Structure formats: structure tokens, C-alpha cells
């Protein structure tokens, strides 16, 4: 890095000498630079406008649609006020989906955080081939949900890997219908998601553990803390930020998870794994209930933003204070 910087110092100087050496071209160059300044700012402003349009304006648009009675393919803007919202509050499917969202959260988040933390702590013990293990654990996370959904459908089939393994451990058990049972399906999905996300959680925690100042660990060791105590008393309290980040990211993921569950169960059996994003998609693109669908989407957005905005506020205020 140092060499790079030095090199660019030099090239830069040589250009500048040229510019200064030929006064005639100086003002021409300057005016081009002025235009260049404009170009860079212009690209920035255009991308800001795109984000304002494609994120903020669309959110407003979506809220407006949720206040209309748009049904069917032809778009209509007849305002019916909050009728969609009151319909939603009486909709059994909506509350089931929301409940499923929270059950999924309750199983998936604690398990993957505990597993991720465990993997991170164990990988932190100066193991050989740490890079290899890290890659293996993280590989599921890099794969597309489309791929992992079919992999797990295959795992969950009646004579699939999971049933075979359970049969090998406890012979004679009946075949478990992982995705066919409405109460078990959500647990099965959580198992698959824990498999996919624990590597990522591990990575977040590992980065946190590595950024604990070595002097603190050393001081604790001199005071006699070692092994288990060192982690519970010293390191885990130090990586609160990582835990917070992992928690928020997983929470937002569970709220907007769509691809995986949609491809794996399609929301079934019954409404067993119906969650808000799936309900929203089905209402809009299968039943053409666009207004009602955007009502659900708005609700989803409000829940996600209630988590996101405090998170961003805390993260960036803390960082600015540190400077």
C-alpha cells in the first residue's frame, strides 16, 4: 500500500509540473477540470435522484395504492381511505402470517446466534486450517436461496437424507413428514435457515472477537481468567456490537424472507408457513388484489423500519462520536 501511494505521488507531481510548465494550456485545463467536477457531482446527483424515485417515491406510491380499491388488472385510483387496513386487521390469514413470522424469528434467530457464536469462539482457538473451516461453514450462505431451497426439499423428502440419518441413529422410527406437517414445517424451515446463516453469524462474531484489543485479553489472562471464563466475562461483553448487528440483520431477514420459503413450501401446508412477504406476493400477483397487497407491504415496511432506523441511528452516532 505504501509503495502504491508513493508511486502516485510521483506520477501526480510529474503531471502537475507539466501543467505548471505550460501556462498557455493552464486555463483550458482548468475549465475542463471545472466541467469534470460538474460531471462527478452530476453522477452523484443523478444516483441520488434515482434512489429518491425508486425507493422513497415508490414507498409513497405503495402507500397511496394501499388507500385505493384497486382490484384486478386495470389500475384504478378510487380512494377508499383506510378500508384495506381495517380489512387486514380482521383477516385471519394476516394474523397467521404475522404469527408465523414471529415464530420463525423465535426459533431461527437465537439458534443461529448461539451456533454462530460457538463456531466463532472455537475457530478463535488458533486452530490449524482455520481458513478452510471458515470457508466450509460460510459456503451455504453464498449459495442462492433457489439452490438451497431445492437442496432442502431433497433433504426433507420421505426417504431423504434427514430421515435416513434419524433412522440410523434411532432405528425403527416412523418417517417424519418434515414439510407435510403444518406445525413441523416452520421448524424444518428454521433448521434449513440455521444451516445457511450460522456461517454468516460466525463471520460477524469472528470479526468482533478479532477486534477486541489484545491488551484487554492479556490483562484478563494475567488476572487469572482463562478458557471459559475469559469468554463469558471478557470477550462476549466486548462483542456486544457484533451481537447487535447480527441480531438486527437476522431480524430484518426473517421479516422479508421470501425466496426460500416460497420455493420450499409455497406457504403451505395450509397456512403453516405463510409469512407476510408470501401473503403479499400471492395477493398481488396471483389474486390481483393489488391494493390489499400493498397494504400488507406497507405494514411490513413499517415493522422493518421500526428496527432499521434506530439501528442505523445508534451505529452511526456511535461511530461519529468516536472520531
Amino acid at each position, binding site marked *: 500500500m505504501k509503495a*502504491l*501511494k508513493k508511486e*502516485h*505521488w510521483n506520477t*501526480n*507531481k510529474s503531471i*502537475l509540473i507539466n501543467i*505548471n510548465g505550460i501556462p498557455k494550456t493552464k486555463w483550458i485545463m482548468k475549465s475542463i*477540470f471545472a466541467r469534470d467536477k460538474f460531471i*462527478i*457531482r452530476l453522477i*452523484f446527483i443523478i*444516483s*441520488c435522484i434515482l*434512489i429518491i424515485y425508486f*425507493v422513497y*417515491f*415508490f*414507498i409513497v406510491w*405503495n402507500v397511496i*395504492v394501499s388507500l385505493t380499491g384497486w382490484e384486478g388488472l386495470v389500475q384504478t385510483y378510487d380512494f377508499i381511505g383506510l378500508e384495506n387496513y381495517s380489512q387486514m386487521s380482521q383477516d385471519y390469514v394476516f394474523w397467521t402470517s404475522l404469527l408465523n413470522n414471529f415464530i420463525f424469528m423465535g426459533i431461527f434467530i437465537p439458534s443461529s446466534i448461539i451456533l454462530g457464536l460457538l463456531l466463532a469462539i*472455537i475457530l478463535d*482457538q488458533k*486452530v490449524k486450517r482455520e481458513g478452510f473451516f471458515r*470457508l466450509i461453514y*460460510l*459456503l*451455504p*450462505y*453464498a*449459495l*442462492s436461496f*433457489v*439452490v438451497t431451497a*431445492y*437442496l432442502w426439499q*431433497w*433433504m426433507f*423428502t420421505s426417504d431423504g*437424507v434427514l430421515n*435416513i440419518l434419524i433412522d440410523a441413529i434411532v432405528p425403527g422410527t416412523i418417517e417424519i413428514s418434515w414439510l407435510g406437517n403444518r406445525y413441523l414445517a416452520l421448524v424444518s424451515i428454521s433448521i434449513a435457515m440455521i*444451516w445457511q446463516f450460522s456461517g454468516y453469524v460466525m463471520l460477524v462474531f469472528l*470479526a468482533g472477537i478479532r477486534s477486541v484489543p489484545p*491488551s484487554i485479553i*492479556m490483562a484478563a*489472562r494475567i488476572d487469572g481468567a482463562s478458557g471459559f471464563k475469559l469468554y463469558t466475562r471478557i470477550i462476549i461483553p466486548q462483542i456486544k456490537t457484533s451481537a447487535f448487528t447480527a441480531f438486527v440483520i437476522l431480524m*430484518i*431477514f426473517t421479516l*422479508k424472507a421470501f425466496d426460500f420459503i416460497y420455493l420450499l413450501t409455497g406457504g403451505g401446508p395450509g397456512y403453516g408457513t405463510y409469512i407476510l412477504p408470501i401473503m403479499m*406476493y400471492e395477493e*398481488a*400477483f396471483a389474486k390481483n388484489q393489488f391494493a390489499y*397487497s400493498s397494504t400488507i*407491504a406497507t405494514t411490513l*415496511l413499517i415493522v*422493518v*423500519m421500526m428496527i432499521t432506523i434506530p439501528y*442505523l441511528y445508534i451505529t*452511526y452516532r456511535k461511530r*461519529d462520536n468516536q472520531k
Partner: protein
Amino acid sequence: MTLDNMIEMINSELDNEMVFSIKNNSKTILFYKIKRTIKRVTLYVFLIIMAIIMFIPLWSGIIAAFKSQAELSLTSPLLPSLSPTLDPLTAAMNELMRPMLNSYLFTFMATIGSCLIGSICGFVLTKLKFKGSNIVFLFLIIGIFLPYQSIIIPLFITIRDLGLYDSLWGMTVVHIIYGIPITTLLFRSYYENIPDNLLNAAKVDGAGIMTIYRRIILPLSPLPFVVAAVFQFTTIWNDYLFALILTGSDFEPASFALSNLAGGTETAWNNTMAGALLYSLPIIFIFIFLGKYLMQGLIAGAIKG
């Protein structure tokens, strides 16, 4: 010897756990050695078991891709085929050839586009600071956490009305735009560490902003470019929601085509797994050779979905 080295040395010494408690007692030393070995062995056993658990689904999928339909129903899903066949792969290849090409096209274009824009936005937000630039930044990166469901209906209408539905340009533009927040975040956090003095010196010498960007910032940023590009490539390649809503039969991306391949009345698991394998190849390739950069991107505040 630097301070760091000293700390490291002391650390490694403390690691032995013997420093405090042993007074030339060979029995105690032996005891500690055995205890330590047992600890290390259980550690590795746990690591290897976890690695196997993590790998089982992938293993089962990969071997299924090389089995014939008849063999698939006869053999255990955990054991490799006795007479491996390439038929599922060729069948999947026929189905996925064109969609994969589509996916490559828009993934490459959108990756390059969003990285360039993200780099410029990151540069403006750190080195050309203006009043309220931090707030603008926060407004930009909220897009990372945005549940796409809440904008998908307006997006669908807009793309359809622009005539970009089911086309290369539609997918490219959408992925570039929704890639701006995360690439801006990645580049900004990197450019923050480039000292302002470097730019000030160039400015004093008469360099304009474009020159500074081209001659100083760009040559210093191959790392964030690789990190952002790897991250964007995986995200865009893996995307399913936009593919599902913004494309039809003319311009099928690979993720959508794969779900069609698998979603027939009776799933041919060997073909599905072969398709999934083909579709995952670029990601596995990136993961093995550029995994380090992908991890950096993931740590730098990345989010999936």
C-alpha cells in the same frame, strides 16, 4: 522488537497455561500436556463434525446430479453413484443454457455499473463533503434494509410502462439502482481511510476533481472494487424476487429458469440437482478463489435477501 511482537510473545507464553502453576514438577507438566491434548482433540472433532454437517446437504445434492432416475430411487442419497451418468447435466444444460447466458449478461453489466456509481458516490460523500452529506448518506443506505416487497408493485408498473418488462435492460437497470446503497456504503467506508492531505496536496498543485478521482482515488481502490464487485455479482446472480416479477418467458434469468425446471408436476431430482449445480458454479468459483473479498464485503455491513 516492537511492542506488538512483545505482546504476541507474552500471549503465546500465557497460552501454555503452565507459566503460573508449574514448578519443575514433571508430573504436573505431563498432566497439563495430556489435558491440553484432550482439549485440542475435542476441538478438532467438533470442528470436523460441524464441517460434515454443513457439507451433507451439498454432498447429497452433488451426487444426486450424477445419478440416473432409476438409480436415484434405489440408492441411498448419501452414497455416490456406482455408474455415474452425465445425462442429468446435459438435460439441465439444455434447459439452462440460454437463461444462464441472460444471467451472465445482466449480472456483469449491473455489477460494473453499480460499482462505478458506488465508487463515485462514496468519493463525493467522503472527499467532497457538503452540508448534510452524512444525512444524505443515511438516506442512501436505508435502501439496503428496504424490504423489496414494499416497492415491488410500483416497480412492476414502472418497468412495464417503460417497456422494459422481460428485457435485458430492465434487469440491468433495476439491479444497478438497488445496488447503489450497498456499493456506496462499501466504497465510503474504504475512502474514509484515504488521508485528506493526499488530496489536498494534489489540489494545491492544481489537480482538478476528475484528476484526483482518476489519478489518486481509482489507483488506490482495486481492493474495494474487487470487494464490491464480488459482493454485487453474488447478490445479483442469486436474486430470485426481481427475476420472478420482472421477467417472463423471453428473457428468463437462470434462477427463474431453475425454479421452472424443478417445479414440474413430478420433480426429477437428478435434473434439478444438476441444474442447481450448474447455476451455482460461478458462485462456488468466486467463493473458492475470491472468498476472502466476499467475506470482507459481508462483514462491511452486508445483508442478503
